């Protein structure tokens, strides 16, 4: 347990400000982008685009500057340590990719642009807050903040019924789920009397110590806590899109503008997993009850359902949505595996997951047009010869999803699975491996379409490909390959951040 008083020092305000600098930078830039709308001639599409990119870069800069420091701000309700550094970088990457993709996408829609980018930036800051939040209030607030941005962005395209419907579904389900989360918070608070995670942590330590000496101690409290934790888990599992709480995923992914889909698939998922990891490492893994059983079920159901549902779906965005459900299952395997090895594996997987997903969605954006048919995988038949580089990279990302070696996907899977084997969850791993075996089918289905068209290739009307997209694809390609071939650097990075989970 860390020494709480340290944050009650004289200069705690500076400390506190320091702890949230990256978020602050993003927010400032978000407002700047927003203000652009007031000035007619500045309100060009490009300006806001570049401005938001600059903001993200600045934020990354600050994160790197702060890396290594271990700060508690605002009475310990915000924490900044290497765990956050890792995840901030991840999230900022996903935000950067989203922005890069958006330029091209926004150009052929007549929606107001600056608001769009500012919303993305606000969403980013919310995610970062979520990651570094160390207090149930902070968690709830930032989740809501993040979700609200996401709701708006999902329904951003006016007059597109699909978009609106997606927003509607996402919103109702999201609010419903956060109600559960909130109610869970109630139970936790009622039973422990704390909102600060560390405080709850120590409280639970005492309880488990207490009934380690006398089995009688605090049974009623344990029930309350467990119910609270379960309800809380429901709220988070919704954001992580695990099986019974997944149902928004395909529709929201499908209806939302594709860059936003990427934003949800990478940013929100990672933030949710990050906060879950933090809370799990602090609270769940006490012997209040065996949460791993529940997680085990969730993981197995998620991956199996995701893969099976994806097998036949012909709409690429829905296919990727289902596959992301399955991926969530795989990531959860790492958390179940637990221990230092498992956490760092999970983080590594999350990090690698960004790049493959972003790359894949970038390719989707390239071949997407206003009509709905553009999302059918038939659209991809024969592009292997028209656009060799893009098709090759798409194939590579898909292989990475499938977990073929030389891709980051394999290393990530390998890492989390071996951690699970290490803690003795053999059946879980076997199921996961079988899953990834038949999951390969629908990834390969797309590759077949791209390189071995059986029907006449659909002629794609497509001008010059936007630089942003190309940059995205190239970065994703390089990193996916690098993490697949020489993952050690990233593993070290993940190890540091996993390490900081223990140093509390």
């Amino acid at each position: 347990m860390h020494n709480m008083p340290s944050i009650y020092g004289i200069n705690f305000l500076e400390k506190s400000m320091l702890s949230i600098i990256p978020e602050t930078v993003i927010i400032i830039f978000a407002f700047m982008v927003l203000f652009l709308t007031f000035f007619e001639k500045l309100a060009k599409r490009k300006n806001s685009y570049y401005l938001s990119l600059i903001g993200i870069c600045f934020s990354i800069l600050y994160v790197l500057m702060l890396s290594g420091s271990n700060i508690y701000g605002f009475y310990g309700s915000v924490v900044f340590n290497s765990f956050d550094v890792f995840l901030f970088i991840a999230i900022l990457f996903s935000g950067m990719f989203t922005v890069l993709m958006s330029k091209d996408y926004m150009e052929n829609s007549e929606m107001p642009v600056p608001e769009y980018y500012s919303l993305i930036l606000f969403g980013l800051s919310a995610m970062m807050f979520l990651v570094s939040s160390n207090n149930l209030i902070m968690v709830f607030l930032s989740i809501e903040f993040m979700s609200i941005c996401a709701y708006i962005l999902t329904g951003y395209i006016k007059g597109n019924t699909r978009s609106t419907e997606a927003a509607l579904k996402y919103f109702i389900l999201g609010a419903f789920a956060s109600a559960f989360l909130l109610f869970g918070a109630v139970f936790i608070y009622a039973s422990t009397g704390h909102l600060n995670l560390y405080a709850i942590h120590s409280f639970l330590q005492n309880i488990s110590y207490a009934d380690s000496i006398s089995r009688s101690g605090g049974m009623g409290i344990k029930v309350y806590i467990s119910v609270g934790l379960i309800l809380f888990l429901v709220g988070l599992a919704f954001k992580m899109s695990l099986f019974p709480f997944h149902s928004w995923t395909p529709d929201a992914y499908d209806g939302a503008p594709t860059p936003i889909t990427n934003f949800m698939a990478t940013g929100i998922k990672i933030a949710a997993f990050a906060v879950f990891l933090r809370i799990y490492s602090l609270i769940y893994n006490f012997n209040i009850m065996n949460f791993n059983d529940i997680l085990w079920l969730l993981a197995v159901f998620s991956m199996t359902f995701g893969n099976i549902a994806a097998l036949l779906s012909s709409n690429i965005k829905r296919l990727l949505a289902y596959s992301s459900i399955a991926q969530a299952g795989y990531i959860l395997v790492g958390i179940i595996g637990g221990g230092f090895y498992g956490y760092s594996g999970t983080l590594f997987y999350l990090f690698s997951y960004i790049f493959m997903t972003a790359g894949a969605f970038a390719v989707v954006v390239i071949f997407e047009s206003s009509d709905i048919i553009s999302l059918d995988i038939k659209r991809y038949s024969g592009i292997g010869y028209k656009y060799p580089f893009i098709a090759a990279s798409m194939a590579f990302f898909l292989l990475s999803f499938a977990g073929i070696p030389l891709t980051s996907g394999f290393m990530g899977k390998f890492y989390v699975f071996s951690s699970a084997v290490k803690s003795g969850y053999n059946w879980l791993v076997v199921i996961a491996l079988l899953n990834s075996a038949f999951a390969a089918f629908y990834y390969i289905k797309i590759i077949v379409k791209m390189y071995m068209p059986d029907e006449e290739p659909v002629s794609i009307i497509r001008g010059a490909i936007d630089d942003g997209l190309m940059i995205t694809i190239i970065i994703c390609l390089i990193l996916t390959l690098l993490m697949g071939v020489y993952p050690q650097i990233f593993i070290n990075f993940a190890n540091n951040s996993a390490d900081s989970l223990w140093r509390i």
Partner: protein
Amino acid sequence: MDNYLIVASMIFCIGALGVIIRKNLIVIFMSLELMFNAANLGFVAASNRLNLISGDIFVIFVIVVAAAEAAIALGIAIAFYREKGTVDIDMANELKN
């Protein structure tokens, strides 16, 4: 305190039930509000019982958030109505499978 929590839970369940069974968007939003308020009730009760203040603070935050959400909700509802000409959520069935 148990009784408060039980009441809160009952309200929560009522709200959830409302969300599940009603088809009218507005009613659904109201039920959602009900669920949030159930949570609020729980917090207030708990903080009162433990005579702490943090619960009450949380409640205030929740109210703010709920307000914001209500705004979004209405925005989306209006957009939906403009397109579909109804607020019956069964009309929202374009995205499936």
